[in-house]
Structures are given as structure tokens and as C-alpha cells.
């Protein structure tokens, strides 16, 4: 009986440890976005090179909307090559669109000149209306829309190759089905 008191330690430490441990891997700011599973917002904007771009042109195949800004260092710099590689790899099936978030087009162009322009279009969301429609809280934030125009996944914070592949699967599967 005298040794039972040692049980106190695991009784206190284990539940607390498990509870606090369970919080890892989740980002509490990644609030379940109400937009998931719903039709993507419709829009029509001008791109950096002055062309018109909108949901009309994108409809019918999966697309990715990436909100970014030239001042978003280092997160947007970090994910830039990931997106470029994605454009290279998935470009035939998926359209990638960059959307400037509270940024000056000139600054965005010098960002692209510096870190490489992969060739996908960047829309200028001058009044931030599209960011509001998507419920963007801060760049980088990326939304994955399937061929039916339904938002399937969202990435809060910079994409990595693994994260991108995971999110991409959610819109590609639907396309293949």
C-alpha cells in the first residue's frame, strides 16, 4: 500500500501530457473555413500583364487560387518555388492563379522578376473584394477548387510540396471520378 503513492505521478502527468499533446499539429487559427464544400466565389479581375481573368475562363477544370503579396516575407518567398513546380507538374490538369493581396502591382512584378515567374497568371485584387469573398485572413493562403467549382481544400500559411500534393489530391480525385 505504501508504494501506491507513486501512482500519483502518472495519474497527474499522463492525462495532462496527452491533453496538451493532442493540441499539436493543429493550427487554432486555421478555423474550419465556411467556404469548404461550397461553390467558389465568382470574380473577374485584371491580371498583372493587363489581361482579363475570371471564373468564367476557369470553369470546367480544377483550379488553385493563391493569395500572396510581395511584402509577405519569408512565407510567400518560401512557397513560391512550390507553386512554380506545381504549375510545371499539374499545369495540364489544374490552373494555378495568383491573387495579389493588398499589394502594389509594381512591387509584385519585381518580386516575380527576382524569384522567378513560373508563367501562371496573377490577378490584381485591387480593392481586396476577392480576398473578402474567400475569407482570407492573411497571406499566403491558398484555395483548391475542383472541376465542379466547389472549394475542396484550403491551406493557411505557406505550402510545401507535401502539403500541396495532399491538397491537390482533393481536387484531382473529383476530376477523375
Amino acid at each position, binding site marked *: 500500500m505504501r508504494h501506491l503513492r507513486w501512482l500519483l505521478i502518472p495519474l497527474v*502527468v499522463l492525462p495532462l501530457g496527452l491533453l496538451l499533446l493532442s493540441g499539436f499539429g493543429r493550427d*487554432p*487559427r486555421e478555423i474550419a473555413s465556411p467556404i469548404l464544400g461550397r461553390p467558389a466565389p465568382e470574380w473577374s479581375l485584371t491580371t498583372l500583364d493587363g489581361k482579363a481573368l475570371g471564373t468564367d475562363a476557369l470553369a470546367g477544370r480544377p483550379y488553385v487560387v493563391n493569395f500572396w503579396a510581395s*511584402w509577405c*516575407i519569408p512565407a510567400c518567398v518560401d512557397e513560391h518555388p512550390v507553386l512554380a513546380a506545381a504549375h510545371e507538374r499539374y499545369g495540364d490538369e489544374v490552373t494555378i492563379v495568383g491573387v495579389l493581396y493588398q499589394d502594389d502591382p509594381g512591387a509584385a512584378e519585381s518580386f516575380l522578376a527576382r524569384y522567378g515567374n513560373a508563367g501562371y497568371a496573377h490577378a490584381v485584387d485591387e480593392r481586396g473584394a476577392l480576398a473578402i469573398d474567400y475569407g482570407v*485572413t492573411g497571406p499566403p493562403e491558398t484555395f483548391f477548387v475542383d472541376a465542379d467549382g466547389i472549394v475542396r481544400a484550403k491551406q493557411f500559411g505557406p505550402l510545401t510540396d507535401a502539403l500541396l500534393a495532399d491538397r491537390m489530391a482533393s481536387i484531382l480525385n473529383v476530376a477523375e471520378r
Partner: protein
Amino acid sequence: MIPTIGHASIVIGLGLTTYAVVAFVLAAGGRDERLAASGRRAVIGSFVAALVGCVAMVISLLTHDFSVLYVAENNATTTPAFISAISLWAALEGSILFWTLLATGWASVVLHRHRARHRLLMPWVGATLACVNLFFFAVMTWAGNPFALTAPVGAEGIGPNALLQNHPFMALHPPLLYLGYTGMAVPFAFGVAALVTKRLDEEWLRIVRRWTLVPWIFLTLGIIAGAWWSYEVLGWGGYWAWDPVENAALLPWLTATAFVHSAMVAERRGGLRIWASALVIATFTLTLVGTFLTRSGVVISVHSFTQSAIGPWFLGAILLALTLSLGLLVWRLPGLIGGGRPSGLLSRESAFLLNNVLFLGLTFAVLFGTLLPLLVTATSGDTISVGAPWFNTVNAPIFVALLFLMGIGPALPWGQASWATLRDRFAVPSILGAVVVAAGLALGLRSAAVLVTLGIAVLVGAIMIGEVIRGASARARGRDEDALTATWRLATRNRRRYGGYTVHVGVLVMAIAVAISSGLATDATVTIGPGETARIGAYEIRHERLVVEPLAADARVIETRAELTYTGPQTGSLRTALRDYPNSPTAIATPAVRTSFGEDLYVTLLASDPSTQAVTLHLFVNPLVVWIWIGGVIVGIGSTFAIWPERRRVAVAAAQPQRAPSVSPVEGA
């Protein structure tokens, strides 16, 4: 160059701290004074290393050295120098560097002060403190290097968190809070040392009580400064939201306060030694839990730093500290039981015990409410949040009971109270309290919380005044002094008791202010065009003009500003604005607060319409809020008075040769 020096200083600090741990443990085993002295010097060296690191970081921030990732993420070329300097603690890595500075600072001061005393305890105290510091240096070395470099180097940084550059209190609140947090490692270290060496005696209690009170003062002021900051900056009209991180600061405060009280019983009457050491361990562990909650990204709050690799380190540290210290406690348990002298049901001991039960009740309630969302998510996957109403409902009765106890506890005698004593001390105050409640009812006050708090506050205040008058008049009669001199001398001869009273007065002032400001506040949301007016309480607000322009201090920030005039109990003009920061998705409100002793007029701009120039305002009249801050200052003064070193008895005796030493009442406040 500067970042290299900063990084090198962290590595040097890590080395010195590692050496200190080894030296102290060897010194404890071999009773080797010279090893202990070298351990002490290593700790002081680690403080210097942390200081060099902090200076290097501040220089990097001030010179906008964007090759340092931390600077690129938290600074911009347009950031004012003051904001740059305090950005040292604006984000994760920098705050850990600053934290390490304070932790090594505490360790150095404690080890230096007690260098010639407590030869058995001190090596273990040193070893424990060095272990804690080692953890922070290790985190900075392997998980969150504040001097991590970035390439390519950008010409411009993101700039500091928008919320953090809005108010000078950002310079005050985190350092105070961190001083409190880091200082709680000191009583913990003494607790560990006492358990290891089996020296959990009155001497230990005396040292630990003082070393708990010092960080307790900082923690108290830090929490109050945080409430004040949130009131002045966040723009929702309140000062306490039961945000997880506010709770994280409150939790160790609750257990530390419980300890300060139970230590008095333990010191005076013996016993409670398990309890006292458990509270010391709990307090330190809760400071780590608080840090973990803020820095791991586990909970969301206005304070949470970005998700980082630091979380697992903190979790490991919490579990390790808890396992080892509980292990020590359980190991020593058989020798700790018993020892207290028995006492009656109606006695100061009982009041202290009940006080501790209530404080622990609060601790559990707050901890439960804070961790429940985590528990629910872990078990069912749902997301819930425990809001302020829940915390208010659960905690308000406990606070009221504590307030009541605060009045009667100190007036109860040790051992056993007689009915005659009770009648003498409590009859008049009880009647006064009842009269105030009746008067409130007659005047139309219907809020139960306000009435109960007012009644109890008057009761408690009257009891305290009675206590002071009894003590002072006894002294004035015996020594032929006038009343003021007698009171002052009595207080300075019994600093702990009268400092404690002063703290209680501060708490009383805060309690009344909290009850009334939350119970009797009025607010309204209005939309008015230029030249139109709106009414709130006795105030009339007039919309003069709407201005949209870049901020003079930082042109990247666009300010939408409503310029208003107001008439009523206070008259004047005010500006309240929404600021758009390039790195913040939402506009940051800058509420305008006009403070008077009676009430605050609090105005926040919610929205504006550029076409009509109309503004939507949230107007508040918050009564007595300023008294919360005044009460906080009184608490700070009282607790500082309590721990101020007593003047030497010799000097007193020389100044008053007629005084007989045996008369001096040794009151254990």
C-alpha cells in the same frame, strides 16, 4: 557581425549554464564551496551572455538588419525606433531571448544574495535554476534561434504586429509579466532544494515566501497592465475576456497567492508543508503551461505566437518538471506529514485554509475552462469555445467568497476565536454592510452582483479600519504618540501585516470597480453623419469630420479617423480611428478613452461610409474603471511595503531608548 555576436552569446550561455548545472550538482554532493562559487559565477556569466544577445537583437532591430529572419518578420524600415526596440519581445524567438535574460537575471540575483547562507540548500537551488535556464538556452540553440538568418535579404521587412505598435503599454506589460513568470522559478528551485535536502522548515518558508512575493508583485502588475492595455487598445470596451492567455497568466497567480497565504499558517503554526511545496511546484508548472499555451499554437488568442517547433520542447519541459518535482514530493511524503498545532474552527488558521480551498477552486475552474476546448477537440473532433459568461458565472461566487474571507480572516485570532471577539470585531461592520445594501436597494440598484460586492466591500473595509484603529490606539496610549505617528510606526514595525492590509484595500477597490463597471456600464452603437449628434448616458457626441490619411509616423499605415466633440460630465474633443496596416488583414481600432474618476467615455470607430462621411461608433460609458488601475497600484504599493526590509532593531532601540523590548508585539501578519 552583430547577429554573429548574438548567436555566439547564446551558444556561450548554453555552455556556461551546462557547466553551472554540473558544478552545482557536484558541489551539493561533495559539499564543495569552491565548486558552488564557480557555478554561481557561471550563472552570472550566462546572464551577461543573455544580455549581450538581447543588445545584439535590439541593435539588429534598430538598424533594420533584414538579414536576420526575426527582424525581417517583425520590423520595417518605417518602424519608429521605440517600437523597433521593444519588438525584442513582440514575437516568439525574441521573447524567448528576453525571457532568458530575465530568468538568468533572477538566478544571478538569488544566488548572489544567498551566497554566504543556507549552505546545504543553495547548491540545489543553483542546480535547479541553472536547469531551467539551460532549457531556454537549448530552445534558442536548437528550436527557435532568434538570430536565424534569411537569404536573400529583402529591402523591406513585414513590420511589427499591428496590434503591438498601438500603445506604449506594450513596453510595460510583457516585461512585468515575464518578470513574474520567470521569477516563479525561484520559489520552485527552493522547493526542490528543500525536498532534496529534507529542509522544509520555517527558515525555508521565510525565504520562499519573500522570493514568491517579489515575482508575485510583478505578475500582479503585469496582469493588470495587460488588462489596461487590452482596454485601451482592443476597442471592445472591456478589460478582461477570459482569453486563454489571460487565464494562463492568472493560473500561476492564483496558486502563488494561495501559497503566500498558506505559508503564513505554516510558518506560524507548523504543518501544511506538503501543501506549501505542492503549491510552489504547481505555480512553476503553471507558468510553463502558460508559456506553452502561448507559444505552441495550441490555443487561439490575441496573444498566440505563430506555430513553431518550440511547442514540443515546452511540453517536454512541463512533463519533465512535473514528473521530477512530483517524484521528489512523493519520495519525501512520509517525512512531511503532520506537524501542525491544532486549532479551532473559528480561527485565522481556518480562514487561511478556506482561502486556499477557494483559490484552488478558482485555479481548477479556470484551468478546466481553458483546457476544455482542447479536451473536446481531442475526444470528439468538435470545436468549442468556453466564453466569458461561463467563467463569470463559475468564478464570481468564489471571488465574492474570497472577498468576504479577506475581511474576516485577518481579524480572527490564531487558535480559537471567542464569541465576544467576534461580536467586538464584526458587529458594527456587518450592520454597516447591511445598511449599504439596503441603501442601494432603496436607490434603485437591482444588480445582485453589484449589491453583494458593495455590501461585502463595506463590511471588509470597516473590519480593516477597525483593526488598524485598535492597533494604533493601543500603541498611541502605551507610547503617548499621536494617532498618525502611532499608525505609521505600527505599520513600519509590522510591515507584513500592514502591507498585507494595504494589498487587501487595493483588492477591495478593484473589486468594487470591477463589479460596478461590469454591472452598470452602458453602451450603444450609433451611425451619425457630419454635424449630427448621438447620446450615451449623460454625454452628447457630435460628429465633426471624417479623415482618411496615411499615418505621419509610418506612411504604409492608412488611418480612417473620426473627429468628434463631446459634452457632458467631461467636455472636449476626441479622435478614434481604424488603422489599416499592410501586414494585418483586419483594420486595427484605436479607441478613444476619456477617463475621469467617476466614469470613462469610451468610443470606438466601427465603420465609416466615404460617400456620406457617416461614421458608425460604438459608445460606452464605463463607470469607475480608473479605480481598477488605482486599486492595482495600491496592491503594488502594499506588497512592496510588505517585503521592504525592516529597519534594524538596533537603530530603533537607539532612537527610542525608553522603549521596553518585551512590549513589541510580534504579529504574524
